[in-house]
């Protein structure tokens, strides 16, 4: 067993971790559970399923891009009328692109990543028994689940799913006559997103409250693990930006279904004629959308950065370099993310002066991002690095974050964006920095906290193999795309063979598709490893990675309330690895040292809330109350 090299204290827990008798029924334990650990697992599994679907879609449309002249009979048996004769329908291509984007951005990287690990780690790493409102937490998951179902159901409507891109810009998305997907498909898309926003807000309110209110003794804000800081700021971003998307979505719903003209004006549609709408502005939607859209990028990325900070520090056996600087840069990124949305719209004909302002603030974001990168490098320097699968993915994240982040400097520059906007360069940029990097953060989290979630270890060999294949395929897929974009290849094209100039990229398209399929196959290793290990993996020890943070002090078996006894007190920061004054190379937060100051904030004493006066029947009180009010009766 490969983990044995690291596990110096294997604790005598055996297969009976789940054998305890609980009073809960199957439904309260596994379905409508209010336990944050179970909800986190539900988020994770749903996220993985959605991730497979999203990735599957990308593999299908990559086939079309690589071999536009081939037919794939299996597509017809899979998609029916949308791939007659094994050739993907252009409308369906658009639909796949759209739903792939939606799933990856919202369902996998927002809910699957931040939902899973916020739920798992906020209570455990803060030292809380559960979330502030476990019930709301459960609602949050079920809204998310419902939203996923609604989104996927759009594949079964006659006109197909939403297909105007994951940004669903009106007027295209508002007019069902403009493209078939803008009919029922987009209605379902909008419903799904409204449900998703409700879920995100319920979750976010919970996360913020828990972090601020329910930390254990000694866990001051400057002793919080960076994961929690990242989740906390992510939740704040979500709380402030999702309502704006809700507003944008509502106005779009009104335009689509009630004949208003918020986004529509001066339109003459083929086969319909001049529409009556006048006075609307399609660009307004873009402003509202990107006011969410840009913070959303950081909603996706920041949890991944938080996870990688924790994983890198633990496995490099070094304190994270510049803990305070890391927090300040997270704060800076969060703040700036709200005032940069216009860089998605440089060429919409917006006021050039506004463009300049947006360019300034956008490029400033590169500074905190650079600080984070350098701090990661400094953490690795002279470390004692254990290449657990989680660590591999965290290092991969840093590499992808650098590669993708640097191209952001091009795109944030208004002048360069004139040419690069909506080209393959953009596709390469955001897939590296926000797609792949965040997915790598998610994998790092899964490999690192799998023992916490399921009490068993995942296979390390398969993990490493999974990492290397995914890493190589990520670079093979996205690196050449930069050059395609720079050569003037536009994104969201169904095929390039109609434009002779793009012919030279046909073999690159083939390479990308083959690499993408390789990446897809690599995920099968993960899926196998994940589900096999849930049931048959070797039983983990309580602190398999010899980590400092509180979640490893709870013992293996999951109980509602996390700690059987009192919640441990915290004595120091989360990253005290390899302290020179200690023999062991880690020093858990909950272990009392010599002469360390004991930060303390006491729990509020629970007051007796019963009423001192006499008890009466409610109806009597209600009616006599009016008499009291008009001073007819004295209490």
């Amino acid at each position: 067993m490969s983990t044995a090299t690291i596990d110096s204290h294997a604790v005598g827990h055996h297969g009976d971790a789940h054998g305890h008798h609980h009073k809960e029924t199957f439904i309260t334990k596994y379905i409508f559970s209010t336990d944050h650990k179970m909800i986190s697992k539900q988020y994770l599994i749903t996220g993985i399923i959605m991730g497979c679907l999203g990735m599957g879609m990308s593999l299908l449309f990559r086939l079309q891009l690589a071999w536009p002249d081939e037919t794939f009979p299996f597509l017809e048996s899979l998609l029916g009328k949308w791939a007659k004769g094994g050739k993907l329908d252009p409308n369906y291509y658009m639909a796949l692109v759209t739903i792939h984007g939606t799933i990856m951005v919202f369902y996998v990287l927002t809910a699957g990543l931040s939902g899973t690990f916020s739920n798992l780690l906020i209570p455990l790493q803060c030292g809380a028994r559960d979330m502030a409102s476990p019930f709301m937490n459960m609602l949050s998951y079920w809204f998310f689940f419902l939203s996923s179902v609604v989104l996927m159901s759009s594949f079964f409507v006659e006109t197909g799913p939403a297909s105007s891109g994951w940004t669903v810009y009106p007027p295209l998305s508002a007019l069902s006559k403009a493209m078939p997907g803008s009919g029922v498909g987009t209605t379902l898309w909008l419903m799904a997103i409204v449900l998703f926003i409700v879920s995100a807000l319920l979750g976010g309110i919970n996360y913020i409250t828990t972090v601020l209110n329910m930390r254990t003794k000694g866990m001051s804000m400057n002793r919080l693990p960076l994961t929690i800081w990242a989740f906390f700021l992510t939740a704040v971003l979500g709380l402030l930006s999702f309502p704006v998307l809700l507003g944008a979505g509502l106005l779009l719903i009104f335009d689509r279904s009630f004949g208003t003209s918020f986004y529509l004006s001066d339109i003459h549609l083929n086969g319909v004629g001049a529409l009556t709408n006048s006075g609307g502005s399609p660009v307004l939607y873009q402003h509202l959308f990107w006011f969410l859209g840009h913070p959303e990028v950081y909603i996706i990325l920041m949890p991944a950065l938080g996870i990688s900070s924790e994983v890198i520090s633990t496995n490099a056996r070094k304190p994270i370099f510049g803990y305070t600087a890391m927090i300040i840069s997270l704060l800076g990124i969060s703040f700036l993310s709200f005032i940069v949305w216009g860089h998605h719209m440089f060429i919409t004909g917006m006021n050039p002066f506004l463009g300049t302002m947006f360019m300034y603030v956008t490029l400033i974001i590169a500074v905190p991002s650079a600080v984070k990168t350098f701090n990661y490098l400094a953490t690795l320097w002279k470390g004692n690095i254990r290449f657990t699968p989680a660590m591999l993915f965290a290092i991969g994240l840093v590499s992808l974050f650098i590669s993708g982040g640097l191209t952001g400097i091009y795109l944030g520059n208004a002048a360069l964006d004139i040419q690069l906007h909506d080209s393959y360069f953009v596709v390469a940029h955001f897939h590296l920095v926000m797609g792949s990097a965040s997915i790598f953060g998610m994998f790092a989290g899964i490999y690192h906290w799998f023992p916490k979630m399921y009490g068993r270890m995942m296979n390390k060999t398969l993990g490493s193999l999974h990492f290397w294949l995914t890493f190589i395929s990520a670079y093979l897929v996205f690196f050449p795309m930069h050059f395609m974009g720079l050569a003037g290849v536009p994104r969201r094209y169904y095929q390039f063979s109609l434009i002779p100039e793009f012919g030279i990229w046909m073999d690159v398209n083939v390479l990308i598709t083959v690499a993408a399929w390789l990446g897809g196959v690599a995920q099968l290793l993960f899926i196998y490893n994940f589900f096999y290990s849930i049931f048959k993996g070797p039983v983990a020890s309580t602190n398999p990675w010899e980590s400092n943070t509180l979640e490893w002090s709870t013992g293996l078996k999951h109980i509602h309330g996390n700690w059987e006894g009192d919640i441990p007190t915290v004595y120091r920061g989360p990253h005290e690895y390899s302290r020179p004054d200690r023999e062991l190379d880690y020093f858990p937060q909950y272990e009392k040292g010599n002469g360390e100051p004991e930060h303390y904030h006491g729990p509020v004493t629970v007051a007796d809330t019963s009423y001192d006066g006499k008890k009466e029947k409610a109806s009597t009180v209600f009616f006599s109350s009016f008499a009291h009010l008009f001073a007819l009766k004295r209490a």
Partner: protein
Amino acid sequence: MTQVNMSKRNSLFNEKTFMVWLFIIASSMLFIAFSSAYWVHMSDGIKNNAWQQFDLPIQFWISTAIVVVSSLFMQMAYNSAKSDDVYKVPSLLTLTLLLGIAFCISQIMAYKALINMGLFFSNSTAGGISASFVYVISGVHLLHILGGLTLLIVAIVKASRLEVHKKNLVFINICKTYWHFLGIVWIFLILFLYFAR
């Protein structure tokens, strides 16, 4: 062995009230989004001569008065609870609730007045978006009011069971905060719609 006393936990402040504040922040963002969308449309519309100006119907101003008075009653109810004058609380809350319902009715009358003025939610008048926006903004506010009314009903039931008193102010505090928020939002919106047109 697996039974943990969940009530014994760390808590710096009352989390329920805090969550309501977070909700208030989130829904403020929604109203900010709508009003800035309105603002952008207006400045574009006036430039292109495509912006319909109209006087807000008087019913909206009546609603404003109602909302102010209901907020006063809400505050009185809270003060009574705080000073343990528990027998006054249910009636004051009921008055708040009735005024809340009156507010809804007044809003609906305002919509009727708008329709009589020929200003429809869905219209194809040049610059008719101003009317659509009035409907959307006040409509979303009305949805929030419905939520507030639900809270008030629960509060009345609790108060009648003598569960709202000096030592147990959490729920009425939430009601008060939320209800005042709705009042303030409405006053902001009506002034915004009055001055920006």
